[in-house]
């Protein structure tokens, strides 16, 4: 329970319904999109303006109360998991699109605005906001900034960090920083990059200026089926090697193909070991050229079946399957656990083989969907939380997949963030020196460690306790010893 004094102070400038502390009111906030982790916060506050947030932060700063920011709560790494003694700061009520400047191709928005709402609002000007995480219908732009979210088009159009110009950020002390500018660069250090993807650890974003880009004249999709995952991986390399940057390049493995086909009837080849979806966008002339070349490359790369979408309805149908991969996982299994490692694509076949081996070892099925163009792998481990021990086995399996990604020269998280979920694997990806620098960066903004404590960067003590098996950049201690 929060102290009477804190509640009274908050109520002096917030309406009663914006200060929650009864258990039943707190319940909806106990987890984000990663429901395996749950924790009730001490209280929830729902401010409507920047002035209110400043006052909340000043109060928390003065009383050394932890603050966890939350947008739409769709995050997949437990980044918005509440703190038991902390205030959960919901930014959901700040959902105004403040200004659209079609000529400058920018929009100034509040953090609670949904990702897709931006593109919808600027559509009449022939513009859109490029990063399109699969949750874009629900996820908030503030959360996108916190996680540096990507999407299926980010090889060509970039991540959040490439598509924002300016942030208004409040420090834990309630000071306001204007980071970036309306210009393409700004004076001093690139704090815009540092804040993007910082998982609510450095400051609270209250306003975002995003870049908008023209909606391409045309988009067309090639769907290619392969009888071997390796061949599909090589086809991706061949496309890129030919100088083509596809707008989207997605791969699905056999188990995924079957799960989504049953669910949606997208027209996928059920005999395929892997399916590639490769999209081209741009001017009509450009797309016609590129699709022809992609088609030929797929043929040369040994595709067993190829089809190019003949109209918009067909293009959307081909995509529908990929976009339904997660719901399909939810349909074939009571629960699923989504991983987010990124690897250099050349190691794809090895990593997939490794995952299959682990899948057998742990007796858990795993579907693999892959942002193939940029190496971002989303294995979906299928499990049943009601079976005792299965969640624990799933987490262990997932942890091993991430270790494999690090071994392959990749990273434990491409776009979902570390949050609470991957905090242990941070000990594997980084050495003490780097982790110390991360803590130092945090301390430069938040010396008392009040913003989202315990997330994103593990304490050195935690790593030491996890300890003995410290794998870094493929250099394992005692490589001759078997590891289980």
């Amino acid at each position, binding site marked *: 329970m929060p102290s009477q004094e804190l509640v009274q102070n908050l109520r002096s400038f917030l309406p009663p319904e914006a200060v929650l502390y009864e258990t039943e009111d707190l319940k909806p906030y106990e987890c984000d999109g990663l429901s395996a982790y749950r924790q009730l916060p001490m209280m929830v506050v729902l401010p409507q303006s920047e002035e209110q947030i400043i006052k909340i932060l000043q109060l928390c700063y003065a009383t050394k109360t932890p603050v966890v920011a939350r947008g739409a709560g769709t995050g997949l790494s437990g980044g918005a998991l509440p703190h038991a003694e902390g205030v959960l700061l919901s930014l959901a009520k700040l959902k105004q699109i403040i200004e659209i400047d079609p*000529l*400058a*191709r920018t929009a100034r928005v509040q953090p609670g605005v949904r990702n897709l709402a931006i593109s919808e609002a600027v559509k009449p000007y*022939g513009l859109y906001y490029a990063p399109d995480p699969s949750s874009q219908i629900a996820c908030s732009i503030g959360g996108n900034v916190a996680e*540096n979210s990507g999407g299926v088009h980010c*090889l060509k159009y970039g991540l959040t960090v490439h598509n924002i110009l300016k942030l208004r950020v409040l420090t834990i002390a309630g000071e306001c920083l*204007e*980071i970036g*500018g309306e*210009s*393409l*660069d*700004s*004076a*001093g*250090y*690139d*704090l815009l*990059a*540092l804040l993007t*993807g*910082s998982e609510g650890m450095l400051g609270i974003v209250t306003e975002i200026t995003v870049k908008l880009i*023209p*909606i391409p004249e045309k988009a067309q999709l090639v769907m290619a089926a392969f009888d071997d995952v390796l061949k599909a991986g090589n086809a991706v*390399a061949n496309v*890129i*090697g030919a*100088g083509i*940057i596809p707008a989207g390049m997605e791969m699905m493995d056999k188990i995924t193909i079957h799960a989504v086909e049953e669910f949606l009837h997208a027209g996928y080849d059920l005999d395929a070991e892997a399916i590639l979806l490769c999209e081209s966008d*741009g*001017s009509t*002339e*450009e797309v*016609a*050229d590129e699709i022809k070349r992609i088609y030929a490359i797929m043929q040369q790369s040994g595709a067993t079946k190829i089809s190019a979408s003949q109209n918009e309805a067909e293009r959307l149908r081909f995509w529908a399957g990929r976009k339904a991969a997660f719901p399909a996982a939810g349909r074939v299994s009571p629960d699923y656990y989504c991983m987010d490692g*990124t690897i*250099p694509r*050349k190691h794809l076949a090895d990593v997939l083989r490794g995952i299959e081996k682990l899948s057998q070892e742990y007796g858990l099925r795993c579907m693999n969907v892959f*942002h193939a163009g*940029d*190496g971002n792998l989303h294995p979906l481990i299928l499990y049943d939380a009601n079976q005792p021990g299965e969640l624990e086995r799933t987490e262990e399996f997932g942890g091993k997949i991430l270790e494999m990604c690090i071994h392959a*020269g*990749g990273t*434990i*998280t*491409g*776009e979902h963030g*570390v949050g609470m979920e991957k905090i242990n694997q941070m000990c594997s*990806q*980084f050495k003490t*020196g*780097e982790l110390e*620098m*991360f803590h*130092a*960066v945090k*301390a*430069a*903004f938040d010396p008392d460690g009040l913003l989202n404590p315990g997330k994103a*960067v593990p304490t050195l003590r935690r790593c030491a306790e996890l300890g003995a098996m410290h794998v870094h950049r493929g250099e394992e201690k005692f490589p001759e010893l078997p590891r289980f």
Partner: protein
Amino acid sequence: MQAIIDQYQTAILEAAEHRTPLQICGGGTKHFYGNSVTGKNINVLDATAYHGIIDYEPTELVITARVGTRLADLEAALDQKGQMLAFEPPYFGAAATLGGCVAAGLSGPRRAAVGAVRDFVLGIRLLNGKGEDLHFGGQVMKNVAGYDVSRLMVGSMGTLGVLLEVSLKVLPKPPVEITVCMQLDEAMAIEKMNQWAGKPLPISATCYVDGELFFRFSGAESAVRAAQVKLGGEELADGGVFWKSVREQTHDFFQSAKPLRRLSIKSTVPPLSLPGKQLMEWNGGLRWLVCYENVDAETIRRVAKDAGGHATLFRSNESRHHVFHPLDPDMMKVHRALKEKFDPSGIFNPGRLYPEL
């Protein structure tokens, strides 16, 4: 190569012990840019010694090289595979290195279309002020493990650490590029550039100088030709030469003994009323200014700030101590805190970015 890193570490530890500045130098092509390093007993750390391409995977679109690698060598390697550094970094001299390019953070004509240096940096290896050898980011396009320290280094002018290695995303070279030119007044040019940037056209660079608007189309032959028909204008025979002269500042506009100022502002801002001549890039987002009469820095900075951006004294023959746009006190506080964490003894390029750092 480890021996060189060992030497750097020794130099850092000695400098830290005596609290004497270390001036980090690459090819020396950008000495003119930024403030002078301040302090007594300055030692030079020669970053060109640590050079060479470490890894290049054309089909992964990633190159990793040591900071002393010459930009020319890097671009030659990419060129062989039909790829490029898409942000078109200015060299300002044949000796320009990768490290200097990243530390200065300057991008060329293609910046408005594809992004800046910082947008292409994927990972970095650096030595901090304690001489610790650290890796941030990596060699993959998407990576959100830990804070984005790699991009923080871009444009930090060597004040946070000694960069050792950089991984960059690279892009295929467009099959066709053509440059078109038309005469327009300045206000109309600004409007056109921004209107076109909001249309799905393959425009990869824009420049307005001496009453003429130049723009470059890049992409597939069919797309480029279709765009040319749409927008009109007269095709330049040697477009490549023109853009190189803008990128390297060898164009006539830049040939002046007067100070050159760089105003990075909101692209749609109408013509700035400042005395002197201007050259515009980046759809109007970058305005180079040569003042013939004396205009005080304050006035120029106010104009830039009102235009949503900032002003830099880019080239000047006078002593240089405040060339970058001043930061608000709260921002400076954060800058100082970060500097203190990366470089607790204050040895790396003191004063080069701001006197306080």
